[in-house]
Every structure is written in structure tokens, then in C-alpha cells.
């Protein structure tokens, strides 16, 4: 396995297809841990994790508060909770106020993951309609992680990847295919 051991992915409007394609492409036994913080419509509280799991070869689950995370699994931030990565490789959840009108907040997951996982972390911001994720991706980069933004041209909704690109200063603007290729190279 290469130097990266964790992947944190943030997405909002227009990101569902990319997320499912990425999960679909990762093989059984893929060794990195994946964290997913995805905005969803307020009334869509259930069924989302099942929809993602349907095509994924790796296990996708919504973590319980204070539960540990393991290699080769994908964890989805539960609806209406912020998802933090805590020191000691456990999750914590919170229902404090939305950040950037979002709960879960991509920034909060990214910032906490960057703080704990440092240069072992890959951060990916996908399509979306608001500014969430930009500050978080900058933290990933500033803490020595690898920052990726979905190609602006490919993104269905461009605000989120554009803001993330500018604020983080990363030059890694990847299409979904390139993201997949990059993730497969980390095995």
C-alpha cells in the first residue's frame, strides 16, 4: 500500500453518479478507508446508504458514534448529523447547527480528518451547489494530504468544485475516471 491510507469524499448536488462510479470501481479488498460526506435532500433520510451499497463492492455503512473505523470499508455520514474523525481513529457524530447551511458539513469532516490523518489522507471535492468543502480541502492540503477536485467541466453543478479549487490552490482537477485511476494506484 502507498503512503495514502484514507480517502475523504465530499459531494452535493450532481455528485451521486460520480460517487457510485467510484465505489463501483474499487475492488473487493480495497485497502484504503473511505469517508463519504454527501449532502442530501432533507426528506431523504433513509435508503441512501442502501442505494450506494447496491453497486459498491466494498462495504458501505453509516457509522455509530464513537465506533472505530477499519481498512477497506466505506462510511457515510448519517443524514442530519455532522461526522467528525476523532484522534484514536474513531468517529464522533454531532447534531450542532448546520455549517454553510449543511448538516452533514463537508468542511467539518474534512477538517477533522485532515487534523488526525495528516499526510495519509486524500481529499476529494465533487460536484455541488454551495461552498461547503472548500475550507476543508484546504486543510487536507495544508496538513500534507493530497487534494483533488472534480473536473469543473465534468461537474454537473460547478460552484462547489470551483470554490474548492480556488481556496485550496490545488492543481489536481480530475475527471471521475482519473479519480478512479488515482485511487486504484494506491493499492
Amino acid at each position, binding site marked *: 500500500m502507498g503512503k495514502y491510507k484514507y480517502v475523504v469524499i465530499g459531494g452535493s448536488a450532481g455528485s451521486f453518479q460520480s460517487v457510485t462510479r467510484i465505489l463501483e470501481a474499487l475492488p473487493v479488498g480495497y485497502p484504503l478507508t473511505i469517508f463519504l460526506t454527501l449532502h442530501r435532500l432533507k426528506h431523504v433520510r433513509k435508503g441512501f446508504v442502501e442505494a450506494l451499497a447496491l453497486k459498491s463492492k466494498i462495504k458501505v455503512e453509516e457509522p455509530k*458514534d464513537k*465506533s472505530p473505523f477499519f481498512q477497506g470499508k466505506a462510511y457515510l455520514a448519517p443524514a442530519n448529523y*455532522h461526522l*467528525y474523525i*476523532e484522534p484514536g481513529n474513531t468517529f*464522533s*457524530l*454531532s447534531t450542532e447547527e448546520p455549517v454553510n447551511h449543511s448538516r452533514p458539513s463537508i468542511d467539518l469532516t474534512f477538517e*477533522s480528518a485532515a487534523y488526525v490523518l495528516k499526510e495519509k489522507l486524500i481529499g476529494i471535492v465533487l460536484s455541488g451547489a454551495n461552498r461547503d468543502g472548500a475550507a476543508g480541502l484546504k486543510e487536507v492540503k495544508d496538513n500534507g494530504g493530497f487534494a483533488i477536485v472534480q473536473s469543473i467541466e465534468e461537474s454537473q453543478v460547478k460552484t462547489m468544485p470551483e470554490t474548492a479549487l480556488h481556496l485550496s490552490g490545488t492543481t489536481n482537477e480530475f475527471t471521475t475516471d482519473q479519480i478512479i485511476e488515482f485511487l486504484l494506484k494506491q493499492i
Partner: protein
Amino acid sequence: MPTVEDIYRFHNTIKEISKYDFTEYSEKSFARRIEKILVDYRLNMDELLDKITEEKDFLEQIVKDITVNTTELFRDPKVWQAIKHRILAKVKKQGTINIWHAGCSTGQEVYSMLILLTELDLLDRVRIYATDINIDVIEKAKIGEYVYRFNIEYIENFKQVIQVNPYNFEEYNNIPFSKYFEVNKVNDTMTVKPLLKNIVSYHKHDLVCEDNIFKTKFDIILCRNVLIYFNTTLQNKLFKLFSDSLNRKGTLILGIHESILGPISSSFIKYGNYYIKK
């Protein structure tokens, strides 16, 4: 974000000047609360520490600001369906039913319970205690007035719990939301009707440093989305407190993403979204 050292100084100051103790709170979410406080009051850490040391009222305000008060009427309807059809159905046969809402916030779940108890005709047999560290939210809970427009899902949740029965699809109870709440769209409020008031005993209580203050044991304890703000050490301490405070076969109801992970888990049997004390 405040540094680890800043948080350490904050913890030490609080312990020195008050009976509060936040050292066992979840690290990242606690740092985020402090960051928000610093931004909201436009203070740096030194100024914050000076101000809480000098002004007692400000310290109390900060304690309130640290705690998170998100709640909902019939939050997670599935859980409330289980409370209605499984848990309350079971305690129905006994004499007095003691219920503790630990961390009751602005009271939505207290009223959810009161509505179920009314519907099941159990209201005159219960003693309900509700506690929170924050006296402001307790006052709000007593009033029972909530914003209407942002909380329209309350009505949807109410329907799912009160009108339909997931265990028997043929059952339908035509009970309107207006039986329990006065909705005023002009003022953008929904207010609990008087029939649910003055039944609950509210108390200020800090789960971190206080024991079971009611000289009684409980049949049902609800503590939902409170423990997520605490680390595993403190969570284990509270699972012990809840276990000690429950009658045998008593029920502990947590948030749907909370679970008993530590040693106390062997004292309980898990059923779906709730735990029964062995």
C-alpha cells in the same frame, strides 16, 4: 480552530472556577463549539478565559452555548413507533411508570412521550422527570411553543407515529395534530395545548458530575443525542449511571446512531433501537 493547548487551558479554567467539567467531551466537536463561541463573541482565548473568570453570568451563558439543543417532535418515527407498540405496551400492566428524559432540551421528546401516554390512557399512572444542564431550554420546554414553518416535519412525524401502526397496516387512527398543538401560521408558532402541561417535573441536572438525583428507579430512560458529545470514558460512566437507575427489565432509549460499546453492554439486551436492562 483553537489549539489543543487552548482547549486544555479552557478545561483547567472551568474546573478551577466552577463545578462544571468538560474534559471528557468529544475532542473535535468540543473544539468546534469553542471556536464558534470565540467567533460569536469576537474574543480570543485569553479574553474568553478572563471574562468567564470575572463574570459568573457570562460563564453560565458559555455553558449554555457549549451544549447543543437540536431536537424534534417524534424524531425518528420508527423509534417512537417502537416506544408506543412495544415498550409502553409492555409497562401498561404495571402500577406506576417512572420515566426520565435525560438531556430533555426544549422538550419536544417530552411532549412526544406525553402524547403517546395520553393516547394509551396511561397519563395518570406515570411520573415523568425531565432534566437538562441548561435552564433556558428547560424554561422553553415548560412553555412548549415551537416555530412552525421550520418544523413542518413534526406533523409528518406525528402522523407516522399516531395515525398509522406499522405492526398492523389495517389500523388507522384519525387523530389530528390539532388535538395536541395549536398552530398559528400568522405568528409562525405551534403551541402545546394545556392538557399536556404541568405533568412533568423539570430539574436542572448535569449528567457529567451529578448522580441520579431522584430517589427512584426508572422504567424508561431516554437520552437521545446527548452522549455523542462525550468521549467513551464519560459514555461508559453514564451507561453505568443509567443501568443503576433502571429497574430490572427497564428500557434505555438512545439516539439511532448511538450504541453501548463498552463494558456495560453486557448489562443490557439490545432490541432494534433500544436496550433492555437484564
